[in-house]
């Protein structure tokens, strides 16, 4: 009996190991893909950014980033635009997610398809579509003038306004999706309890619903902000050369100046900043959870 039991113990351990290996095997293709398409290029980028024009190790690209005021301006503009887009997305997306979360699930799912529809078209196509809508003789301007809403064509594109419109359009689903999920998870009994204890609808919302939706809101806002930092196509097409974000500068450094080192340094700095923001936010959210601020 004793030896049988010992024999099985070894076999059971082997089974457990085999299961772990099988699980790891399932993750392997994705791991390989990420290594080839992400880890190696980023490492190469890192390496390039530390090579001077003469091919020797040097910090000259980073020194230039600090010394030239134009780089600081570009970084500031990038962060400002990302923050504005995130703010507009919150203003538009929060009420939308709220309405969806209060609808019956079946209807909400249908509406969700509408929210996700933009994903079916490439960013490039959507951005060109906005160009058609927003330009001086575009649909919106001609309609507005014909209806007498304004007399002169509004400058809706080839500037910051157009860039913001295009970016908000693309980013909105990234905010609505996690927010909707976290709102759905809020048990309606919490709101009933709030009402029963004397809170009218407005106070029940601000004291109970809003705090419980914060994890979803912060997750969505974070995704939008981080994705905005790397935007290229939309500011390039709708900004009309007046809106330059970091990605646009990287492109011009390579295409016009063939300066791979400078472009790499920009990329590395952007990557590090984005990672720092993510880490800081993750810590904030975790703290928030520590104080009980999560939906069940």
């Amino acid at each position, binding site marked *: 009996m004793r030896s049988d039991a010992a024999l099985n113990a070894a076999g059971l351990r082997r089974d457990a190991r085999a299961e772990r290996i099988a699980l790891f095997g399932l993750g392997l293709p994705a791991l390989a893909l990420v290594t080839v398409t992400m880890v190696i290029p980023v490492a190469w980028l890192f390496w390039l950014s530390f090579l001077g024009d003469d091919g020797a190790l040097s910090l000259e690209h980073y020194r230039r980033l600090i010394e030239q005021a134009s780089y600081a301006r570009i970084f500031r503009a990038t962060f400002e635009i990302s923050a504005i887009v995130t703010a507009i997305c919150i203003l538009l997306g929060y009420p939308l997610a709220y309405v969806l979360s209060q609808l019956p699930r079946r209807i909400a799912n249908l509406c969700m398809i509408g929210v996700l529809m933009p994903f079916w078209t490439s960013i490039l196509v959507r951005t060109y579509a906005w160009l058609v809508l927003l330009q001086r003789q575009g649909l919106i301007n001609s309609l507005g003038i014909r209806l007498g809403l304004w007399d002169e064509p509004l400058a809706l594109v080839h500037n910051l306004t157009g860039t913001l419109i295009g970016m908000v359009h693309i980013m909105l689903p990234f905010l609505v999706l996690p927010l909707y999920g976290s709102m759905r998870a809020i048990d309606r*009994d919490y709101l*009933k*309890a709030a*009402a*029963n204890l004397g*809170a009218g609808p407005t*106070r*029940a919302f601000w004291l109970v619903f809003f705090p419980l939706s914060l994890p979803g809101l912060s997750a969505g806002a974070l995704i939008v902000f981080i994705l905005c930092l790397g935007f290229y196509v939309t500011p390039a097409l709708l900004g009309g050369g007046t809106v330059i974000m970091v990605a646009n500068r990287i492109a011009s450094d390579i295409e016009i100046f063939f300066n791979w080192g400078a472009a790499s340094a920009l990329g590395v700095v952007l990557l590090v900043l984005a990672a720092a923001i993510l880490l800081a936010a993750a810590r904030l959210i975790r703290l928030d959870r520590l104080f009980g601020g999560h939906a069940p």
Partner: protein
Amino acid sequence: MARDASLPITVRQVAKRYGAVRALDDVDLDIRSGEFLTLLGPSGSGKTTLLMVLAGFTRPDQGSLKFGETEVIRLAPHKRGIGMVFQNYALFPHMSVGANIAFPLRLRRVAKADIARRVDEALALVQLAGYASRRVDELSGGQRQRVALARAIVFEPRILLMDEPLSALDKQLREHMQIELRRLHEQLGMTTVYVTHDQREALTMSDRVAVIHHGRIMQLDAPRRLYERPANRFIAQFIGESTFLPVELADGIVRYAGEAVRVTQTGLPAGRQLLMLRPERLRMLQGAAIGDGAARDNLLRGSVQRTVYQGDSYLIEVRLADGTVVSMRGVSTERALAAIPQPGEPVALAFAPEDAVLMGEDAG
């Protein structure tokens, strides 16, 4: 307390339909000030709908609802000023225990110092003194239950609603909390409406029990009356265990399978009736004792079909001559257990005339 601690509740002709289903079918109910009334029924009976109408979360199609003299049927939930304990407690997860209990006081703009004092008092009342700074997810089920209760009573509502508040607790804790809730009710004196599907809980805790079925109140009585004189077969089956025998009532004599059955109940119409027997009101007789039992009690003769040992009690199923199976329950004592007969043995079940309950056949 300066003002009355409780209010009576008057429900008149409250109806609520969901499509073709009548969740509430013209319900009339008078709940006395300060009483502990339980709405008892199977799931889907309408008991929770009625509670939600009282709380204001379900809007009925018609009817009148008064707290004291005030009509409240159209009053928004947050203006009703009644306490409620939810089935899943609904404690706000983003607030500490203390903040949860302070919530109704904050909304009522109670002074800060008073809030702190009253939160502490409420916590002491539910025996959780010192828990104010705990997080809700650190608490056990029983503790959450107590916090939910403290939150529901801290603003001294005159009516307290409870929606199956003990259903998530294990049996031992549930029985402990039943006594606890009853003690709190006696201490605070607020009118309490309690919803449960657990008949034992209803009998244990309530001053009166309203049995609800198909959106209607079938019987409203004190627990003992409800158990001893159920109005119909449904209630008899829902509350406690019971066996039914078809009997004939003619010329004032009740007959089962031709033999007269002595009963104390009077005033029943002639014709076919049902005789309800509770297992614990039956005694089992064997051998020579059968003849002695017939002098005072009614006897049902049959043979043992099955015996079940259940710890504190035992159950014997006896098959009568016409095939009906009647169960009897006895308290497990060493002597009684030793005397349990083998399946197939002939026995008789004896019951006193006052323990025989007659009821109409069709109701239910």
